[in-house]
């Protein structure tokens, strides 16, 4: 059994999707416990995988006993085991926290919602684990299609946002597929390990370069890298709370992972950084992404819109850090995948908690929230501080690595963009805090103001996970040293210094 551990994070959610659909026919109430059990098993096996990687190193696994190049290989190493844990943990917490939300928002559609969600996780886990470039495309479509549906399931403008996402997402996925097709043309294989062996012989070919660029462009669309981010803000902010809490922390991070995997494992680092020498150019694109994401966030007046544009800026952090091409930058980028998953989960969860009590997510609706929902607001503050990058929250430490990577590479534009974005985040979050803290504004001295509105926190089932995630931001920060020295440093090829 234990040799099949790499398959579990994918197979268990997949089977649970069938189970939910079948049993849900009779008893819709069962959907949640099944999804919960499936994700718990998946998370535990991911932790087990990490344990195995730490003790005996990276390993390959032939799905169904078929060995590559015929079968589909799964491949587990430090990088994907780490991201897998982050993704599954975020999904699990999100699942628990949104139970009440889902019940209210999708009274009639609980079964399809949970089915879609476990399939979505199946896709993401598969993308992370697979060692086959084409299989990755298939799982990408699994995750995307379920993602479109989860977003489009919402009210009002959600279907339109979902449609926009489908159009953009399909273009992105097609680009990736096209690139993979070219690679197959050149090498005759789709297995990543095989590709890595055969590609260096044809590095001077324009077709390979074209394939690389097309794949990369496709991934940029999928991860919402500015200016290809158009689908994200509306999709995340018009989606139902439950869907945005579950999707926002995960999709972009997994796509960043694919970009890293493609550049470091399928190709060799020297191809992208030396032969094509596009590192510097992409970092400049990241600079633009960070600046524009932050600036656009400033222009929003709805909470979830602001948070969505922050996600766009954060994508720039991770892309830029990786393409600096040095160890510090890549460490920052990978650490930020984990941290940003936690941070995004925290702020979207907090927004969801606030939205259980106020129906309108315009900022003006947040008046007096520090009094009404002190814990949710405190959690939002913790998430905000982490996104700003205040120690000891985790956001500070990944930003630290990113900045030192930028200084090391002599790329001061990137450093300036990071600092600019931090400052904009200060403004963004304090704008929110001000409204929640000051308004309704008392004129003159605010003595003995008796607020008529009593405390009304979000339901405990939502609040408890939220508080846990908020605390986790600090814990992750304090242990980021261990995270880097035990895991992340092995996820980066030794030739990168």
């Amino acid at each position, binding site marked *: 059994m234990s040799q099949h551990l790499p398959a579990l994070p994918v197979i268990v959610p997949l089977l649970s999707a069938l189970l939910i659909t079948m049993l849900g026919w009779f008893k819709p109430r069962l959907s949640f416990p099944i999804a919960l059990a499936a994700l718990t098993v998946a998370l535990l096996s991911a932790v087990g995988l990490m344990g195995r990687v730490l003790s005996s190193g990276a390993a390959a696994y032939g799905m169904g006993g078929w060995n590559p190049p015929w079968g589909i290989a799964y491949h587990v190493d430090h990088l994907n085991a780490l991201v897998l844990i982050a993704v599954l943990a975020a999904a699990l917490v999100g699942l628990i926290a949104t139970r009440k939300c889902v019940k209210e928002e999708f009274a009639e559609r609980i079964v399809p919602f949970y089915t879609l969600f476990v399939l979505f996780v199946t896709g993401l886990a598969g993308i992370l684990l697979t060692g086959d470039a084409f299989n990755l495309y298939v799982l990408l479509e699994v995750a995307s299609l379920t993602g479109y549906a989860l977003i489009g399931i919402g009210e009002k403008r959600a279907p339109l946002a979902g449609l926009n996402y489908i159009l953009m997402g399909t273009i992105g996925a097609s680009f990736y597929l096209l690139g993979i097709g070219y690679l197959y043309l050149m090498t005759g294989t789709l297995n990543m390990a095989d590709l890595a062996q055969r590609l260096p012989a044809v590095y001077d070919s324009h077709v390979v370069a074209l394939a690389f660029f097309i794949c990369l462009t496709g991934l940029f669309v999928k991860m919402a890298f500015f200016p290809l981010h158009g689908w994200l803000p509306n999709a995340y902010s018009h989606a139902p709370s439950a869907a945005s809490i579950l999707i926002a922390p995960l999709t972009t991070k997994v796509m960043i992972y694919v970009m890293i995997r493609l550049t470091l494992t399928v190709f060799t680092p020297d191809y992208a950084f030396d032969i094509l020498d596009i590192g510097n150019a992409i970092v400049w694109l990241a600079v633009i992404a960070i600046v524009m994401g932050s600036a656009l966030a400033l222009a929003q007046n709805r909470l979830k819109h602001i948070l969505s544009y922050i996600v766009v800026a954060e994508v720039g952090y991770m892309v830029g850090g990786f393409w600096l091409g040095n160890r510090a930058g890549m460490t920052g980028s990978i650490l930020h995948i984990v941290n940003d998953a936690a941070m995004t989960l925290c702020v979207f969860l907090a927004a969801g908690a606030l939205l259980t009590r106020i129906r309108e997510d315009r900022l003006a609706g947040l008046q007096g929230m520090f009094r009404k929902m002190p814990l949710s607001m405190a959690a939002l503050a913790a998430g905000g501080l982490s996104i700003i990058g205040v*120690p*000891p929250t985790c956001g500070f430490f990944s930003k630290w690595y990113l900045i030192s990577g930028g*200084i090391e590479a002599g790329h001061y534009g990137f450093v300036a963009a990071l600092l600019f974005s931090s400052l904009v985040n200060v403004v963004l979050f304090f704008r929110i805090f001000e409204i929640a803290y000051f308004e309704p504004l008392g004129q003159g001295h605010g003595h003995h103001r008796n607020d008529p509105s009593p405390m009304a926190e979000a339901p405990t089932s939502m609040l408890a996970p939220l508080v846990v995630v908020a605390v986790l931001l600090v814990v992750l920060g304090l242990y980021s040293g261990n995270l880097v020295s035990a895991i992340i440093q092995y996820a980066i090829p030794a030739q990168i210094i």
Partner: protein
Amino acid sequence: MDLIVSLKPLFAVLISILVVPMIIWSGNRPNLREAWTFAAAGIKFLIVASMVPAVLGGATLEWTMVQVLPGAAIAFRVDAFGLLFALVSSFLWIVTSAYSIGYMRGLDEHGQTRYYCFFALSLSATVGVAFSANLLTLYLFYEMLSFATYPLVTHHQDMESRSSGRKYILYIVGSSIGLALPAMVYVYGVSGTLDFATQGIMPSSVPPAVLMALVLMFLFGFAKAGVMPFHSWLPAAMVAPTPVSALLHAVAVVKVGAFCIFRVLTGVMGADLLTGIGLGTVVCYIAAFTIIVSSLIALSQDGLKRRLAFSTIGQLSYIVLGAALLTPQGLTGGMLHIAMHAFGKITLFFCAGAIFVATGVKNISDMTGIGKRMPITMTAFFIGSLSVIGLPPCGGFISKWFLALGTLEARQYVMLVVILTSSLLNAAYFLPIVYRAFFCTAEESKFDNRMGEAPIWCLIPLKLTAFISILLFLFPQPFLDLAKLAVVQILGSK
């Protein structure tokens, strides 16, 4: 030098964080709630004080919490300088807590539970800064202090406090993220460590121009020190309740800024390195500019707290000046000034608050004749003024004496003139207040002859700090010994 591994610094920092849940829990029982504050303040001071013998014996106490970056941990280290600052701020927390009771209850303020919670958090951060073993830990607590004081500054939750709060966050967090953080990352990049060390950690390969940029980034990045042009948050922050202005904006917050600059100049850059390329002089002139200009602005302020704020800006630059002189006497003077100015200025703020509680008056022009109404308060105000001006028999004289000696030692004669000029200006903006309070004709007086002091909880603290200001002139030993020892630790045993 002995190293002692000890949990004491950790406890000294944590105690006031741990008390926060208790304060919230007893939010409906004000007496119990304030008892928690007093308990935490008392224990904090005792823990800090209990480290004095060991440190005076030449030891440093250390505790490493967790290694967060290679070569940089979240770690505490108690040396003489840090202990001096922690002693001052933890002692004054006790006094200010008593004063807070008088002030907040006297004015029947709202949100008192929140107020005491964030006050406790601020003190944790302050002592955390004092006991930081490296720049990273220092920065951590520096930022914690920035955010923990925001709800205190904006306590009134009205239009004015909102705009002041904006200014406060923008200046303080903006400069620390925009300037201090990148400088810190750069230092880490070239030296591989962030630990404060005797004579600094900068490798000799760093060119002077870069060093210059780094020094300026730190100098302005730690904007809590109020070095011009990064000073205008401080007058704005005076919108806070007076106990906040007293402890935080005369002692804890602002001196954290000066402390950080002091640490960076001596522990990161190193005295010899800075003297060698003449960077100390550059900082001296920036500080001198701030000293003179802020004193001139103070002259024209009619709001008492605003005048005190501009005075504080000038006095903070004395500390920066002391650090930038980089000579034993100058450093001693700078460190002593942290303590001496703290007791003097907090007295003045306590008086300003007492006047406001008793009469509702904020402006100096309305205070003519107030000496007859509040003789005790105004006497304390006089003593506090003397100390800040730097006249005997008050503690402020001692620190200015050492600073003056330091200028001679460093051959910075211009700085001596600056110090003397500034003292005159200080006298010019403080003494008229006292004069008009006591000496005026019955027609000029805006108060009747009835005596009416502030509540006893306000009076006792201001009497106490005024008394200590005099006492420190006669017995400066506890702080003087620590400062002298700190100079040896900073410069190395020469």
